[in-house]
Structure formats: structure tokens, C-alpha cells
């Protein structure tokens, strides 16, 4: 591994650390909060009072970026964890048990993959109770993403667990009289861990982007709470963005964070390989 790669990863870790720290310090850095509307200064350019200007209804964009980062960045890992657990349960266990279990797990996974998720998400959102607080809407959005995003990881895990099941050391362990949960827990799971880690890391940027997409569809985090999705909505009017480059900040942040995640997780992928 070259020193450049290591430096890249170190930088990526530093960027992620900085972004997370800044978002956690939002209460101090932007004490007025993300919802306060400075109506006399709506859609204002950057100034001393509003470092990134204000949005169309006068909310401080810097504050919204900080709080939005906190929401997107802290809940995406939670959704990724949920996804990885679901994938391990369906794919990992199915692959380990093999035979009809594996076929059943893959059938369920294929079914989930073939569903039109965009429309299902719209339907799920439409069926949700209306009086959901913004905080609850955040949790529901990421819970939905977590519950629905496990399929690709499940396929990988099923395949890996199937290979492990047929591997020499597992056969040897089985021949030695180890079976059932003990075999899974002691011999299979430790070997699945790198794949699980990799899937976890891969899912985080995917969920950040998914939440951003849901936000653009109006299905994400409820107003007035910000998220990267709702912040990216400002870029919808392509006529205006060239004249107001500061509106690109959430997008740049998203790209930087996702790239940093990719750099960090490339190590995890190498471990998994």
C-alpha cells in the first residue's frame, strides 16, 4: 500500500472527523437555530451575519447546513447498521444454512429488488400518520431506508456465507463434531465480519444520497428540520444556481463526505477481499 493511499485515507478520516465535529457543535456555532426566519433578509447572499446567506424564506443557510449534516450524517450510519443486521439475518443465515433456506432467502431478496421502490416509498409516506413531528419524520425516513436497503448486502452475504459453508476449515470443524450455532458463531461469523463491515461502510453514503433523493421528492425530513436532501432542493432551479455559487455548499459537502467515506471504506473492501 503506497504512502499516497495512506495519506488519502488519513485526510479522508480527518475530513469526516471535522465535518462530524462541526455538525455536533452546531448549537454553539449557530445559536439562532435552523428554523428562525429572517424574513427581512430572505434569499440574501453571504454576509457577516449569514456566512452562507439565507434561504428563500430567510433561514440562515450555514445553520441549516450544520444541523442538516448532523441529521444526515448521524442517522445514515444508524440506517446502515440496521441494513447490515437485516442482510446478515436474511443473507448470511440463508447462505450458511444452504439448500432451500438459501433459495428462500434469495427469493425474498429478489422479490424486494424487483419492487418499484420509488412508488412504494411514496405510498408508505402517504400512508403514514400526518401529525408526525419533524424529529419523528427523520427517524421514520431513515428507518424506512434501513428496512428497505438490505437486499444488495444480503446477496453478497448469502454468497459469502455459502462459500464459507463449503470451505475446508468449516468442513473440518463439522467433522470434528462442531455444529449448529456454535459452528456459525465461532467459525463462520468471524469470517463474515470483513464483508459485514464493508457493507456497513458502503451503505452509509448510499443512504445519505437516498435521503437526499427522498428530500427532493418531498418525502424526506419534514420542515422546518433540515437535511442534506432538503438543502439540495435549492439547486432545482438550474437557471439561478450559476449566479449564486454559495448554494452549492451542501452539494460540495455531500460530495466531500461521500468521497471520504469511499476512501475510508476502500480499506474495508481490501480487508473483505
Amino acid at each position, binding site marked *: 500500500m503506497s504512502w499516497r493511499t495512506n495519506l488519502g485515507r488519513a485526510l479522508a478520516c480527518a475530513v469526516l472527523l471535522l465535518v462530524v465535529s462541526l455538525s455536533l457543535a452546531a448549537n454553539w456555532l449557530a445559536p439562532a437555530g435552523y428554523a428562525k426566519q429572517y*424574513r427581512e433578509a430572505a434569499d440574501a447572499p453571504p454576509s457577516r451575519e449569514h456566512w452562507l446567506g439565507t434561504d428563500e*424564506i430567510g433561514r440562515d443557510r450555514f445553520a441549516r447546513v450544520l444541523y442538516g449534516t448532523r441529521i444526515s450524517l448521524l442517522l445514515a450510519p444508524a440506517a446502515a447498521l440496521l441494513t447490515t443486521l437485516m442482510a446478515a439475518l436474511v443473507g448470511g443465515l440463508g447462505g450458511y444454512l444452504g439448500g432451500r433456506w438459501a433459495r428462500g432467502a434469495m427469493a425474498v431478496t429478489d422479490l424486494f429488488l424487483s419492487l418499484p421502490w420509488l412508488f412504494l416509498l411514496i*405510498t408508505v409516506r*402517504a400512508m403514514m400518520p400526518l*401529525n*408526525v413531528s419533524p424529529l419523528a419524520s427523520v427517524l421514520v425516513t431513515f428507518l424506512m431506508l434501513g428496512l428497505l436497503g438490505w437486499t444488495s448486502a444480503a446477496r453478497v452475504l448469502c454468497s459469502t456465507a455459502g462459500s464459507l459453508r463449503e470451505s475446508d476449515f468449516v468442513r473440518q470443524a463439522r467433522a470434528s463434531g462442531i455444529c449448529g450455532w456454535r459452528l456459525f458463531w465461532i467459525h463462520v461469523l468471524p469470517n463474515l465480519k470483513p464483508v459485514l463491515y464493508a457493507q456497513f461502510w458502503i451503505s452509509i453514503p448510499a443512504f445519505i444520497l437516498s435521503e437526499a433523493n427522498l428530500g427532493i421528492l*418531498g418525502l424526506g425530513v419534514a*420542515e*422546518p428540520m433540515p437535511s442534506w436532501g432538503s438543502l439540495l432542493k435549492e439547486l432545482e432551479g438550474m*437557471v439561478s444556481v450559476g449566479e449564486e455559487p454559495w448554494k452549492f455548499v451542501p452539494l460540495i459537502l455531500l460530495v466531500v463526505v461521500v468521497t471520504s467515506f469511499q476512501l475510508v471504506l476502500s480499506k474495508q473492501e481490501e480487508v473483505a477481499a
Partner: protein
Amino acid sequence: MKDLLGRLAGMTIIGKKLIAVPIVCLGLLASSAWAQGELRFCLRSEPKTFDPLKVEDDASVTIRYLTGGVLMRMNRRTQVLEPELAESWKVSKDGKQITFKLRSGISFSDGTPFSAEDVAYTVKQLMDPALHSPTGDAFRSGPGNVETKIISPVQISITFPAAVAGLDRQFDQVAILSAHSPKKEMAVLGPFMVADYQPGATVLLKRNPNYWKTDAQGRKLPYLDSIELDIQPNRDVEMLRFKRGEIDLVNSLDSEYFDKLAATSPQLVHDAGPSLDSEQMWFNEVAKAPLPEYKKNWFRSAAFRRAISEAINRDDLSRVVFRGHAQAAVGPVSPANKFWFNARLKAEVYSPDAALKALQADGFHLQDGILKDKDGNAVVFSIITNSGNKYRERMATMIQEDLQKIGIRVNVVTLDFPSLIERMTQTFDYEAILLGLTNIGLDPNEQMNVWLSSSENHQWNPQEKSPETAWEAEIDRLMKAQASTADAKKRKEDFDRVQEIAVEQQPFIYLVNRNALSAVASSVQGASPVILAPQTYWNVETLSLKYSKPLTGQLRQNP
């Protein structure tokens, strides 16, 4: 000598040619100022029909306006009816009969002569129940048949079974069909005719060679050779195309684009003032709605609705959300509707303190900054609006903050439009909705489907078997009374009272009237945008282009 004379003669001829060429050129240039060129603008959807009687969608309305010949046309600037194919008309006192005196010597675009027979044929088609003409609905005043009597080739009377309010105005939408032309609805009496249609791409309209109108100088109208209508649903693309000079008009501009364009080319944009369109919110007052009883009680209380209305800062909504290109709404009728607007009504004054006092008088109280009703229930409700409409989302968020000042927690929910409509019309599973209303017509009868308590579009409590409140019963009575008389003064009095009741009871909390914003390229001459649709090309016959552009229609036909 002969040679000299010959040379002189030659010079004269050459000289004449030299003089004649600039004259011809000047003549051509001068004529191009009114007689040539192709106007281009966008349709935001595919036209669903070219049959003027079946028109429902905006794109088809545009084509009907540009191609259809009508008996009378409402001047979009003065809002006064002006004679077109009918030289004059007379409505009977009981409002059931209208008699037209038609112009003579007029032909359809295919050369078929126009007469009273065509009017009779059009009315027959219009009222045919099998056709389900949306235009015809406005004339269905009561059970029974419509009778037409051709008095002479240029005179016809039409008798309806019951009085039709604003009978003459309704004919503004009725494009006359030919009774005899083999081309059916493609034979038109309007300034243009459909020449080519490329589904999903363009509709090309060519000048009607038999159009009957001339200008003050006796020149045949319309000035334009053709109009190319590009089907373009994406407004961003429409704006970019306008900026690049590929299209000449943007009929309805949103305020953000308007300001961007105004910053660089102020001469191209036009703010004609408040339009007929309104943005409004309302509470669910349906008795069988799946809501807790205490919430139904709030929503059915006029005092509660009035207090909410008072706590909303409409001026901020206009200034911030619409960048000043909107006006605080007064009531059901926009001030843009010159005749029917009740000028005695004034916009609600923003006063959270007065709103809070009114709520306290109605049994509510503030506790730790949270408004609670007399049973201790915190006042929390959701406002739904359609996702993707950034203006409504912003309005809802601003209302959320306004109401927070009086201790009310509002959850803003954006739903895709079909889900919203399902909740609004089928399940009634909502608390408050914020939507807009697009008014096309000026007449109160156009709003009949909203105000009658038995109507499906009586949004806050649709299809009531009998009016559930005294004020709704009163509105029913007034709306029916104004619809059954031809006396304009009496109708105005009745509808003024309807507006007053609507403002007192606030079943709809009217928020703003958006301004009519448009953009017109500097090459278009004679444009004078107005608030009524079609804002920019209402006077299409007299529009012209400063310089003529290549005619794409001709190129397409002769590739």
C-alpha cells in the same frame, strides 16, 4: 446621337432599377413589420383535442383561443364583451334567450360560408349529452332541451330551458363549428388554423387566409404568418429557450424567474398585477372525517378559523415567497376581477395578539407557550400541500412559524398530488390543506361548484345532503338566486354578500393572489400583457415581429 440617347435611356433604366431595388427592399422590410414571421412559444402539455367543444386542458384551450372564431369575445384588458362573429346580441329579461345578429360574408378557413346554421349546429353539438362538452356544462341551467331558431341566415335565437346567468359571457368560450365543411372541426373561423401537429413536439398554426378581420388601415389580420407551439413541460427549459431567443413569449412566469430575468433584461418582463389565481388553506370540516372529536370542534368553529387567518402574515407571504409579485388575498374574488370583486372587503390585518385574544375568548388558553383548548388538548394540526410546489411548501413553513407565535404547533406534510386528492375527496383523512385555485372565468357561476354545499368541490365539507350550517344555507340561496336572474345589479348584490359571508366564516383562508407575470421578447410588437389568460397573446391578431425569422413550419413541410 442615337448612341448617346441609347446610353441615356440605358442609364435611366439602370437608374430606375437602382431606385426600385431599395424601394422594394424598404417595402419588404415595412411589410415584414406586420405581415410576416412566426411567433414561437411553449405549450406546457400535449393538447388533448383539437375539437373546441371537448376542450378541457390548458394546451387545448390555447389552441382553441388561437383558432376558434367566437360570436363575442371578452376583451382581456377591459373585461368587456366585444362583438366578433355576432354584430350584436340581445339577452331576454328572463335570461333564458339570446338572439344574435351575425356578420355576413364570412367564410371558414376552408372556404365554407358561415351562417346561422353553423351557430345552430354548434349549439346542438355543445348541448349533446353524448359529447360531454365541458364548455357546454356552463349552459346547462335546468332540465329540458335547448331550442335554436334560425330567423334568417344572419339571425338566430337560442332559448334555454332555464335562465343562464351571464349567458352572453359564456359564448366567449364557444368556438363556432361548420355545419357543412368536410373538414369538421379543422375548419375554423379564428385568426389561425392548425397546419401541422407533431405529437410530443410541436403544433404549427398557419394564418387563416379567410379570416374576416382587418385593422384600421384595412390590412388583413392577423399580421403573423404562423405560430409554432413547442410542447415543453419543463419550465426551466422554457426559460432557457426564451433567454436564448428560441421562443418569443412566456405566458406565465414564476416570481423567481421573473426577478432573474428582470435583473438582466427588465424590458422583457411584465408584471400585470394580481391575477385571478389564489392560494388558500382550509380545515377539514367533514363530520365523518377520521379525526378526534375535539379537533373537529376546533375546525368547525368560525372563531378558530378567523383567529388562524388573523395570525397569518399575508404580507410576508407575498413579499418573501412571491418576492413581492403577489398581493394579500381579500376573499374568494381577486381584485383583478373588476366587476365582481366586493370592494368593501379588505385584506385581513396580521395581528397575532388579536388572534390569541379571540382564541382565549373561544375557550383556548396558553400554557407554557402551548395553546390548549378547554379540555387541555394541545393545538397541533398538520397542513398538507402537494410536494414539488416550492411556493406552497414555503408558505406552509412560514405559516408554521406564524402560528407558533400563538402557541400552535403545525406539522407541514408534503404529499404527492394523487395521495393528497385521495385524502381530500375520498378518505377525508386530513386536518388542513394548502392549495391554489386557478380561476379562468370571471363570472360567479364559474365558482358554483365550490360554493354550493351539495357540490363535490365544496372542499371543506363536500356533498352535504343539506346545508349543515346556517351560513352555508345562505350561500346556497344567494348563489342560486344570482344564477337564476339576468339582472346584473341583483347578481352583484347577491355575490357581494356571498363574499362577505366567506370572509366572516373563513371556510377558505385566502392567503395571496399571485401576480400575472410574463415575458415577451423585444422582437414582438403590439404585446400588452394582461392579468387574464392568455396573458401575452390575448391580442394575437395584432401581434407582429420586428424582423421575420426562418419559418420552421415551411421548412418542415418542404424538407
